């Protein structure tokens, strides 16, 4: 977070996203920083835009990091996941994941020896743990969906 503050104009971002409601999509660590707190290399503060904590994945002995194509389970419908009911393998590469406080803000989970949140949304703020930009057809569809939501 210290590094983000040194690299990005966080106040301006907050003005755009929180006050003016500009749509934003956080990818991978970009989703994780939306949370209040993260536990990687000690406890750190996040942006706090979506209430939750980023914890190490609990994956009952499966290899970590979680690297590769994993299907997702859509738990609540959202325009972001439109058309993705059948093709839903996405590319993940991470060891930590967000535990979202408000379950109503979770739209999809993934199972890797244990379930974790992989699509969250609160108003104009979206986060995905996987990499749509690396997920071929499904990823392109998600990006297209986000652009439609954003218009």
């Amino acid at each position: 977070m210290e590094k983000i503050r040194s690299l990005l104009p966080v106040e301006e971002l907050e003005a755009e996203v929180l006050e003016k409601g500009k749509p934003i999509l956080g990818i991978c660590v970009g989703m994780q920083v939306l949370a209040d707190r993260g536990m990687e290399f000690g406890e750190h503060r996040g942006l706090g835009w979506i209430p939750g904590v980023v914890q190490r994945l609990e994956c009952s002995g499966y290899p970590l990091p979680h690297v590769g194509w994993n299907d997702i389970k859509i738990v609540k419908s959202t325009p972001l996941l439109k058309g993705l009911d059948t093709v839903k393998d996405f590319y993940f590469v991470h060891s930590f994941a967000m535990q979202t406080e408000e379950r109503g803000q979770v739209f999809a989970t993934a199972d890797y020896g244990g379930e974790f949140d992989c699509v969250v949304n609160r108003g104009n703020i979206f986060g995905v743990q996987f990499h749509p930009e690396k997920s071929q057809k499904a990823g392109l569809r998600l990006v297209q969906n986000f652009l439609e939501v954003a218009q």
Partner: protein
Amino acid sequence: MKKNRMIPVLLLRNGWLVQSKGFQRYQNLGNPVWSVKRLSEWASDELIYIDISSDDKHDLRRDDIGHPNRQSFLEIIEDVSKETFMPITVGGRIRTLKDIEMRLSLGADKITINTQALEDPPFIGQAAKEFGSQCMVVSVDVLQDSGNYQVLSHGGTRVMNEDPVAWALEAQERGAGELFINSVDRDGMQNGYDIELLQKISSAVSIPVIACGGVGKWEHFAEAFDQTQVDAVAAANIFHYMDQSVFHAKKFLFKKEYNVRPPDLISI
């Protein structure tokens, strides 16, 4: 559930894609960027792209294909990442954190190191701290001779130690996110993976292991999944001489109900 991955490996030598045998003999395969585009269209799960040049002179020597004649590996990486829509791991001649940062900023998703990790093991941890373990793939070149193993550095030319399992565990301990295991003696031989080696390493570590070296037919991929705990199977030569090779390889495994993504063809 997560799928097992199938990963084509591309070797780049002074601007050309090459086929390798025993880490010594190389045959020219053509333009690096076009091959990547094809592998992307065949829905490869990932791509490993390694610069095995001994210097940084890259010359595509083709001005007739409407593509700029790139002079450095970094320029080629930049072109390659524009052509793909899949995760890329980049390796070869990485010595410093700056080398890693440049590759990641040009579009690599992960990097792989071998010689630098063996010569300066704490470097693995420094890089993992800076960029995250998830993008640190430690590449381990192993030579097997009459049941004895050697871990090699400098493109298979120097012996660094004789215990690949101990080195795999140390790399994991220091922050490697994945291990890319290459059998030097099987490189280009088409006689299948070194199952014993892969089983020893994949059962000892808790990070994903990528198998490489020796694939001569699709059944060799199945053998690795049947007999070891590797997370991913990689190969180079077998993917380069057949149209839609990755598609056919995946179809072979998918039909036999292996845990892989369905075969697909993509036009982007």
